[in-house]
């Protein structure tokens, strides 16, 4: 008997193509799993509306589920349950940090400069840091500098 938990376990193999240590489940973008007689319908929502990785993620979901013997897979991308960075799981946050990306601080859905100014450095743990640019190499990252270890680092930015 196929369960949602089992499908989630399989989907844990599907990683964010730009952050290969983070699964889509831990990223929090899988919003629904509907197991039907003839196949599985997965609903997902993008982190950023213009995220160019969405089509890759859709294809990866189909590929992984088919590998596990699911004959029909449908992936629906919608905005019914809007993503925000609070949806990244604890496991996902640890994976980001180990990857060298500061995880986004939990927030009350109102992002302002205050919560971006002293992000904890993923290299040395210091909060003696500042925001260099709210925009980084991908739509979901910002650039920061640590005054203690003198490293420039990126953050998966809160949204």
């Amino acid at each position, binding site marked *: 008997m196929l369960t949602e938990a089992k499908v989630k376990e399989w989907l844990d193999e599907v990683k964010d193509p730009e952050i290969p240590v983070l699964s889509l489940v831990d990223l929090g973008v899988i919003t629904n799993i509907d197991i039907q007689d003839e196949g599985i319908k997965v609903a997902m929502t993008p982190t950023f*509306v213009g995220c160019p990785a969405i089509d890759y993620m859709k294809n990866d979901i189909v590929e992984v589920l088919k590998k596990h013997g699911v004959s029909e897979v449908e992936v629906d991308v919608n905005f019914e349950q809007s993503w*925000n960075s609070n949806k990244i799981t604890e496991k996902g946050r640890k994976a980001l940090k180990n990857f060298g990306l500061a995880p986004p601080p939990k927030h009350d859905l109102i992002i302002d400069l205050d919560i971006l100014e002293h992000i904890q450095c993923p290299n040395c743990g210091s909060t003696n840091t500042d925001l260099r640019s709210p925009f980084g190499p991908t739509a979901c990252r910002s650039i920061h500098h640590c005054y203690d270890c003198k490293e420039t680092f990126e953050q998966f930015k809160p949204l």
Partner: protein
Amino acid sequence: MINQEALKELLYKMADDQLILGHRNSEWTGFGPLLEEDIAFSSMAQDKVGQSQALYQLLYDLGESDPDTVAFMRNADQFHNSRLVELPNGEYDFSLVRHFLFDTAEALRFEMLTSSSYPPLAQLATKIKGELRYHTMHANIWIKQLGSATDESVSRLQHSLNELIPYALGIFEPSPHEDQIITEGIFQGEELLKDQWLDAVTQLISKTSLELPDITLINPVFGGRIGEHTMHLQPLLDEMSEVFKIDPTADW
């Protein structure tokens, strides 16, 4: 039953604004005055083009052509963007002031749209609103810093502000369906948006050495919403759609 014509008109003008300014932002890629600004304008370009695609998708769901066709196959007189967004980038001060004036309005517009009576638009607005926080944050930081820095930075921004304010007022060109849009709860209307925008702009400018021109004495530059554009839009569209027109199936 929502008035479809009114809804489509609203969606087209918002999507076209995002697409055209997104394209202008992308023209800064490789030309930014410093690396971080190069990345910032490129990132905002990516966000805006993505947002326009999502808005065109809503139009597709309402029976219009698919997003690529709508984006690449129309001529200038079929676009509903405000003239503000089609103006060439000029120097950095000009692009920065336009970015500030436009994104302040856009952030407020999408905030208002989170309570739209058309659920797909309300859902999308909730998403876009969060992304635009970073755009307004970026604009505000630079306007505050350069608006009170040196004589040259202040005079450059002031000059661009004076030039751009009439175009910025053109964002709020009323729709022929304004009454239905408001009474049906699709959107609270351009006039209310303009008031909120003016408050926000006035507040930020008051923290700098810049002076906001008296907008009651200014004639807004209208026309964009009904397809009447400057000479600058068609060349932009020609460049943007060049690859698509050679090979609509091209992928890269």
